[in-house]
Every structure is written in C-alpha cells, then in structure tokens.
C-alpha cells in the first residue's frame, strides 16, 4: 500500500507530498526522514518568529515539536485512510486533516513555546515530577479491534511525551542506556548536585510515569 502511495501521489518541488511523508516515515524510510526533517526545519525557522529566544531554545522547540509529530505518525495516530491523511480524534475515530504536516508542526511548536515560557524560571527537582500532574488527559481512545499491544505502546508513548524533559532524560539514561547514577550525575552535573537527589528524582519520575500509564491502561480496560 505504501509503495503504491509513494508512486501515485504527486511530487512537490521535487520532494515528497504529505502523503508520501506519512507513508515514508511509517516505513522508516531514511531518505523521507531526512527530506522531511530538512523541510520542516526550514519551514519552522522561516515561520517561527517568537522573540526573546536564543537559537538553542528555538532549536529545542523545533526538536520537541518534530518529535511529537514524528511519534504521532509512527504510532499511526496520523495515518493514510483512503486518499487522505487522517488523525485520530478524542473519541477514537479518524478525521481527515485539514492542514499540512508543516502547519501541524507549527501548532505543536506554539504549545512548546508556551511550555517553555512557563518553565523559563528555574525548575527545581520537586517540580520535575509535579509537572506531570497538571497535564491534560491522554487523548487517544482506541478502537477495541486494534492490536492491544500497539494500543498500549501508543498510551506509553503519549505518557512519556507528557512528562518533563528532565524526567525523560534521567529515565532514558538509567533504564534505556543503562548508565549508572554516577554517570548520570556526571552527564547532568549542572542540573543535579547530589546522587541522593538524583536517585529520588529518578524514582519519583518513574513512579509517576508508571502511575500515569497504569491509570490510562485502566481507563481503556487494558490493565497489565
């Protein structure tokens, strides 16, 4: 199906159409990834005119927004249905998207921008795991006919996206990259001053994430 989409849809400026991008990203096609990343980045820098932000902060906003969009496509919350790109709604149904992927990216960027403004003040360790409490509900509601495992993955990915960047970094370093607390302390020396503080943060981040995931799983009757 994806190959047929790739060959049928029209080319845009010797690049890819949005449908080709969605199909390509879902196939993990590296050329499509590179092309879309470059186009999205250029579009973002051309249209994101918020002032008082350094290049690094702007890049941070772009990366976070792009990651969200990419995850939505990868998890098939954004997918191709028939001859159009659709996005899953709160009630679990899919509706055709009325804007381009780059416009959608900018909507994510606006949210990221507001988040960054809110967190412009120094974030204490206590706030790292409190941040998660105030978030909106995970929006995805799944069709019961979908593969349960895939649905669980989506819930987990969305819960991860909602925790603070610092929490994600600590958890990724510890659980995925299997770094020791001492190594994490070295990597994050500016953010964490003591090993005990880091251990507490790590535990609280993980427990909050587990609680969040468990609650969402329970909500959709998918408890593990």
């Amino acid at each position: 199906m994806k190959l047929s989409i790739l060959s049928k849809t029209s080319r845009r400026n010797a690049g890819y159409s949005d449908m080709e991008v969605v199909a390509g990203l879902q196939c993990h096609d590296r050329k499509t990834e590179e092309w879309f990343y470059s186009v999205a980045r250029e579009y973002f820098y051309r249209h994101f005119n918020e002032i008082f932000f350094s290049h690094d902060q702007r890049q941070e906003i772009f990366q976070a927004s792009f990651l969200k969009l990419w995850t939505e496509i990868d998890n098939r919350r954004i997918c191709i249905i028939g001859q159009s790109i659709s996005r899953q709604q709160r009630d679990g149904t899919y509706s055709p998207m009325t804007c381009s992927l780059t416009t959608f990216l900018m909507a994510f960027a606006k949210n990221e921008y507001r988040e960054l403004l809110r967190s412009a003040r120094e974030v204490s360790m206590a706030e790292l795991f409190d941040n998660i409490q105030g978030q909106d509900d995970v929006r995805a509601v799944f069709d019961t006919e979908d593969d349960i495992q895939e649905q669980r993955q989506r819930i987990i990915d969305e819960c991860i996206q909602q925790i603070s960047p610092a929490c994600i970094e600590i958890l990724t370093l510890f659980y995925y990259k299997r770094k020791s607390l001492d190594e994490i302390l070295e990597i994050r020396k500016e953010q964490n001053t003591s090993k005990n503080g880091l251990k507490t943060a790590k535990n609280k981040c993980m427990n909050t994430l587990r609680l969040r995931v468990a609650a969402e799983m329970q909500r959709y009757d998918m408890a593990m």
Partner: protein
Amino acid sequence: MRQDNGQRETVGSDAMDAMIVQGLGRRQDKVDRMAEMERAMHRRSIRMWQAVVPLAAAACVAAIFVWFQTPADNVTPWDELGLSRPVLTAYRTATVGSDDIDKLVETGDYGQALVKTAEALKASDKRVEAAAEAAAACAEDQSLVYALQLERSFASELRWTYIYLLVKTGDHQSAMAEIRRYIHEARHAECKEHAEDAGKLLEKLEKK
C-alpha cells in the same frame, strides 16, 4: 527491571516497566536520528560553503579584473582617432533591422551587433550586385541608377558600422580587410563619406 538499590515502588508490573523502557528507547532512537540528520545538514552546509566561497572569491577577482581592464580595452584605434560611433538610422537609406543594430551597438552588445551587421551586409551586397546588373542592362533608366546609388550608400554605411564593430571586438585583421574594401568602394561618389577616416584608421591598425 533495573534497580539502583533493590528498592522500588510496586506500582505497575515488570511487563509494563519493560514497555516503558521500550517507549523510552523508541523516543531516544528518534532523538538520536534527529541529531544525526542535524549533523548531516551541518556537514552539507559546510560543504556548500566550501564550494561557494572559492567560487565567490573567483567571481570577485574576475569582476575586479574586468573593472580595471574595461577602460583600457575600450580605448580602441577608433577612439584614439576620435571618430564618432556610426548610427545607421541616421541615414535615409536605413532599412528594416537598422534600428536593432543601432540598439545593440548602443547597449554595448558588440558581439550580437556584429552578427546582425554581417548578415545585413551580406544581404545588402547582394542587393547592390542585383541593382548594378539591372542598371547596366538598362542604362537609360535613371530610376534604376538611383536605386543602385541608394543600395551602395546603405551598403557603405553598413560596412562602416561593421568596421567599427570589428575594431571594438578587437578583430583588427578582419577590420583592415573590410577597410580596404570600403576604400575600394569609395570610388563611387555615394560611398565616400568616411573614406578619409577609413584611411587613417587603416594606417593606425597597420602600425599595431
């Protein structure tokens, strides 16, 4: 599930923890891939600058060279003699196409003007030949004689313009050949207008 000190909250299951770690991994893979694409873009950007900067520098050097060379090149034997630029449309014998040649000369597009003038001159020489034959065949017809004079006059002006363009484009050998022909044609009364200047120009070119 990995633990730092053997103590852990009991919320969730090992299966859930494993899925969380997978989720963190999926996210990290994307972050790593983005960093890789960012580096690739940076490398491409550097390569582009490495290609563009020498080209831009070469273009600047060429521009400076042209800037300094142009005035020197513009001073041709024609200019040294203080001769005025020929304007075909100033003559009543001017024909269709004269205006185009004048415009090209005026804008300094000597190469294109030379091509157009050569074509016009070739056609004009043929018309002169035909008019001469017609006038010779019927010598008593004064209108044919007058037509021949007009054709010769225009051919002469075209040749003078052609000489100007050859001198301007630096083709002195061809210019000298055309000047000799011009002087030869100047035996006709209607072709004498620049004969004196042509002689001086030939002399100057021969010395070069």
